[in-house]
């Protein structure tokens, strides 16, 4: 089923159980290389978008970061059940082209786990249907309570 049909039928993914501006992941799967792929159909009536902007909706760059964070949290729970990771660092994030309503944001996420230090290094690329990257990011997570976050 196409993502659009799935979102229309089932209304997209349930909201995450922590504070989040929107549900930024509709579905996920693992690709042949083991990377997680997450998809989000950009829709104009998602929360916050009425204000970005009133004259025409553009998916905020930081919401592609939100897709990466929500999908990574889901993936880490699957890779290390019971472990609770939190973001400590965004090494880099780059927004090169916007997503608009009707676009399907496809995020490809590679996770490198270091269980000795309890850290996860994450690389994420967000592309549109043409496969060209529109946002990229490198993130670091650590197990809650072990990192610098108070």
């Amino acid at each position: 089923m196409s993502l659009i049909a799935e979102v229309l039928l089932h209304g997209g993914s349930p909201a995450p159980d922590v504070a989040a501006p929107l549900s930024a992941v509709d579905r996920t799967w693992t690709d042949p290389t083991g990377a997680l792929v997450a998809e989000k159909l950009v829709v104009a009536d998602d929360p916050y978008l009425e204000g970005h902007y009133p004259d025409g909706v553009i998916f905020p760059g930081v919401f592609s970061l939100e897709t990466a964070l929500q999908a990574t949290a889901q993936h880490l729970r699957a890779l290390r059940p019971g472990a609770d990771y939190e973001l400590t660092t965004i090494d880099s994030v780059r927004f090169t082209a916007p997503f608009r309503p009707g676009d399907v944001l496809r995020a490809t996420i590679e996770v490198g786990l270091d269980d000795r230090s309890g850290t996860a290094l994450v690389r994420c690329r967000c592309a549109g249907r043409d496969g060209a990257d529109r946002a990229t990011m490198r993130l670091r997570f650590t197990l809650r309570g072990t990192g610098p976050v108070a």
Partner: protein
Amino acid sequence: MSLSTRDIKAMLPHRFPMLQVDRVTELSPGRHIVAEKAVTGSEPCYAAVPDDAPQHAYAYPISLMLESLGQSGCLLWMQSLGRAAYEGRTALIFGSARGLRLTSRVLPGEVMRHQAWLTAVKGDTAILRGETTAAGRPVLTLESMVAVQRDVTLLA
């Protein structure tokens, strides 16, 4: 100097609930800005938090914290661009950020206090660095962020 809400809305196209700056308390044109965003539990980002969620589930989303700091930096740059900015012909695009380190999270009832410094302007590109605190407690530091100026008529 400081900026009123009307001043802020004259410079940024963002509106409720994506306008993530409540007030500007200090502004040294072309150099430094201090801006604040109050966090409250009655914002849309808290709508779906389950009743039995732990306190850390209420941490203000990182995406919105970065947006709030980015808007603060844009206000600093916009203010130094003058009339074109106020007449709505210029929009600023968040291009990239490097070295964001989180040391604490912000909870409902707290005020995020952002500082941004304009470190360089080259043509239509500005580089800034930033720092956020809440109740005097460090929240995050940002080594650099890049904003790019665009003619609004080309954005559609």
